[in-house]
């Protein structure tokens, strides 16, 4: 039905997709799997008209088509249900259902024919066998009801291909079952499904065929019945490039713990019962899939997320009151994931950004010690090789990598004993990535402790001494970084089964 041939997509010099080919048959559930950054989202965005491709063709029933904008995709019957629900909370189910469609109105005047709308919606509901109170406001709906509503919305239009992006991410087991029933009903009516998920069990159970993506390329399309979890994960992790660059450093076991967590849960339960410890001079990696609570864990330690219970000990002192300011005074620093939103003051200069955490060093009550500030900033720009015209240059004019260096310089200025790094090399160039890794290892040599969160297994394997795997807010495994492979770590993540799988097997 839909054929994708040799699709390319470039961002700058970097290929996000390279020669991607894929075909989806009528009434097929086609699964799409791959690691973070393998190119799944990019492919979906091209199919739905959000991105344009830089090469290759898309054919619909053997006819070449150009999906220039989302409207076009909808018109030719490609509908998508995004991971983050796109509903208007203050609207009812009915209103959300007709969003973006022409409302049925009376011939005279513009009054909407609510009755006709309701009838049409109810009919669709019966056709699909969904039980859902459409009179409810979207904000009062459960995640499952919202998913159903979104699928109904897709079905309102001519829906030949339905793309589902992590549809079960927010659903519990029973709700997932309802979703699977609905998917099967749609397929029976001839709709094709492109099913994107991290959950191997669902894929194996639901799909007819599965395409594995890796580093922007298709690693292969297979019949699901020939596949197993192990095989899929193996295909996803590219063994050829996975040479472990980790330089083994022996962490003296007599060193003291800088950070100890015992049964720590956050108030919103995004972090549940986490226990871990980080020693002086140790780099500890935390790996987990999207939504596993990685960022939330660091925020809980740093004090930007409320802690519910558990014990948090820093350098032998039991911590009972939390705030970033207090964390900083204890020598704990957070390198946030989103540096533009949480790390930098965008309308300030390199200098002003760099000294923000350590203003007391550069000021008395009555004035800023400008000379001292300038001298120190100058030194650190040199040390970290920050490329900027001057320290007065607005931070926004710097490249991502150099901005991140400023964030690191700011952190280093406060002489931290514990670094909480959240995706420290995200959206930085390869050179800077190496530099940041070297910097963290150097800090570890100086007896600082590093807790590193990354969605890139390779990064964790490259520099961490010990690795924890996080799943649904809990630590589920711990590995010393010896002879452990990315495959093993991913197996742990993907093998976290849901209750329903255990029952069904």
């Amino acid at each position, binding site marked *: 039905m839909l054929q994708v041939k040799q699709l390319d997509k470039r961002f700058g010099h970097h290929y996000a997709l390279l020669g991607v080919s894929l075909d989806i048959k009528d009434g097929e559930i086609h699964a799409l799997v791959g690691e973070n950054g393998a190119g799944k989202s990019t492919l979906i965005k091209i199919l739905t008209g959000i991105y344009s491709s830089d090469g290759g063709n898309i054919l619909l029933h053997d006819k070449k088509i150009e999906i220039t904008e989302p409207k076009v995709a909808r018109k030719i019957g490609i509908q998508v249900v995004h991971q983050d629900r796109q509903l208007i909370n203050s609207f009812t189910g009915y209103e959300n259902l007709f969003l973006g469609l022409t409302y049925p109105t009376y011939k005279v005047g513009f009054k909407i024919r609510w009755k006709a709308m309701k009838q049409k919606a109810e009919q669709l509901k019966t056709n699909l066998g969904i039980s859902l109170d459409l009179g409810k406001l979207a904000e009062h709906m459960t995640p499952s009801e919202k998913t159903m509503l979104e699928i109904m919305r897709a079905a309102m239009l001519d829906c030949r291909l339905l793309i589902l992006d992590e549809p079960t991410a927010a659903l519990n087991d029973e709700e997932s079952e309802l979703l699977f029933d609905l998917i099967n009903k749609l397929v029976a009516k001839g709709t094709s499904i492109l099913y994107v998920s991290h959950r191997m069990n669902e894929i194996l159970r639901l799909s007819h065929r599965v395409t594995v993506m890796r580093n922007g390329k298709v690693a292969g399309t297979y019949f699901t019945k020939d596949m197993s979890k192990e095989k899929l994960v193996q295909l996803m992790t590219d063994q050829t490039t996975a040479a472990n660059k980790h330089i083994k450093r022996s962490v003296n076991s007599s060193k003291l713990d800088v950070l100890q967590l015992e049964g720590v849960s956050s108030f919103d339960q995004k972090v549940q019962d986490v226990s871990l410890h980080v020693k002086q001079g140790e780099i500890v990696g935390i790996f987990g899939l999207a939504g596993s609570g990685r960022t939330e864990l660091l925020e809980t330690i*740093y004090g*930007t997320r409320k802690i519910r219970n558990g014990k948090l000990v820093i350098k032998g002192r039991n911590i009972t009151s939390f705030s*970033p*300011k207090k*964390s*900083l*005074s204890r020598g704990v620093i*957070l390198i*946030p994931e989103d540096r533009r*939103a*949480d*790390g*930098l*003051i*965008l*309308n*300030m200069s390199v200098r*002003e950004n760099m000294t*923000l*955490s350590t*203003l*007391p060093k*550069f*000021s008395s*009550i*009555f*004035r*800023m010690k*400008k000379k001292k500030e300038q001298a120190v900033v100058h030194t650190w720009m040199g040390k970290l090789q920050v490329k900027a015209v001057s320290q007065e240059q607005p931070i926004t004019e710097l490249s991502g990598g150099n901005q991140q260096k400023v964030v690191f310089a*700011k952190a280093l200025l*406060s002489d931290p004993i514990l670094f909480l790094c959240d995706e420290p090399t995200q959206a930085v160039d390869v050179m800077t990535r190496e530099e940041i890794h070297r910097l963290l290892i150097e800090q570890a040599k100086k007896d600082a402790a590093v807790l590193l969160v990354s969605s890139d297994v390779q990064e964790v394997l490259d520099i961490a001494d010990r690795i924890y795997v996080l799943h649904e807010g809990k630590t589920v495994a711990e590995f010393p970084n010896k002879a452990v492979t990315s495959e093993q770590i991913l197996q742990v993540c993907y093998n976290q089964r849901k209750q329903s799988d255990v029952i069904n097997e």
Partner: protein
Amino acid sequence: MNRMQTTYAVSLRKWFRVYGTLFAGILIILCFSLLSPDSFATVDNVINISRQISFLVIISLGATLVMAVGEFDLSIGAMASLGGVVAAKLAVAGQPMWLCILIPLVVSVVIGYINGWIITKFKVLSFITTLGMGTVLGGITFWLTDGATIFENIPDSFRYLGQKMWFTVPILSFIMLFLTIVFWYIMSHTAFGRKLYAIGGNESASRNAGVAVAQNKNLAFAFCALLAALAGILMASRLGSAQPTSGDGLFLPAYAAAFLGMTSFKEGVPNIWGTFVGAAIIGILANGLTMLEVPSFLQDVVTGCIVIVAVILQKIGRDAS
């Protein structure tokens, strides 16, 4: 050669973005000087203008502080009225002058801090909160005065600050200049000022950098209320009477001045000298137009249009860069 021309054009544009408002102010002065040469461009009138704008400048400084942290305080007009009324009442009751000034100032700091506390503690919009506070303060002012102007039995000493001169320059003008310099210094040469700007620039990043966001915001609101009350007291002193609505007229021009100020010196950022220039432009316009016998309603129209044009120019300037 070509490249030199382009860099020249770029630097000219940049110069215009940074000093454009100041330039416009000078242009306005030149126009009025030509239109009414005998009355506008005289030493007496300059002194007169400096006295007229002093209240506006002082109250605008406070508005600039809260705008720097990314908030608004809509209660400053009511705060000024209350400040003037309390001071006048105390003066009528025969309290010593220093107490008549100190008490309303202390009250204003407490009220400002409460404003900040409500906003930072409950994470509510400053817009609505201070609108509510302004209404409360207005009510209290009316209760204190029964809605009437206080003018009887006000001692002469109360008029000292508002009406006396030092070396032929009004004391009011000295106070205005002194406070402008003090707050310019605070905002650009102390860690406190740096923190306020950081909070306004990115609250989340500031918090992560260990800046006590709530505490500093509360202080900004306290300073803002303090300056508003002071403007109200000085205005009562100048008039020798206190009206329960005297501050209302200052509220909108104060924000107009601060917005105009954002178009100069530190572009897109509320800044003290920018606010000073903004307030001066508004004051000079009022003065010059009055001399040209332009009716006051038309003056409002002109002032309003200038503010709108200023924000548009600033937006265009920023998009071009």
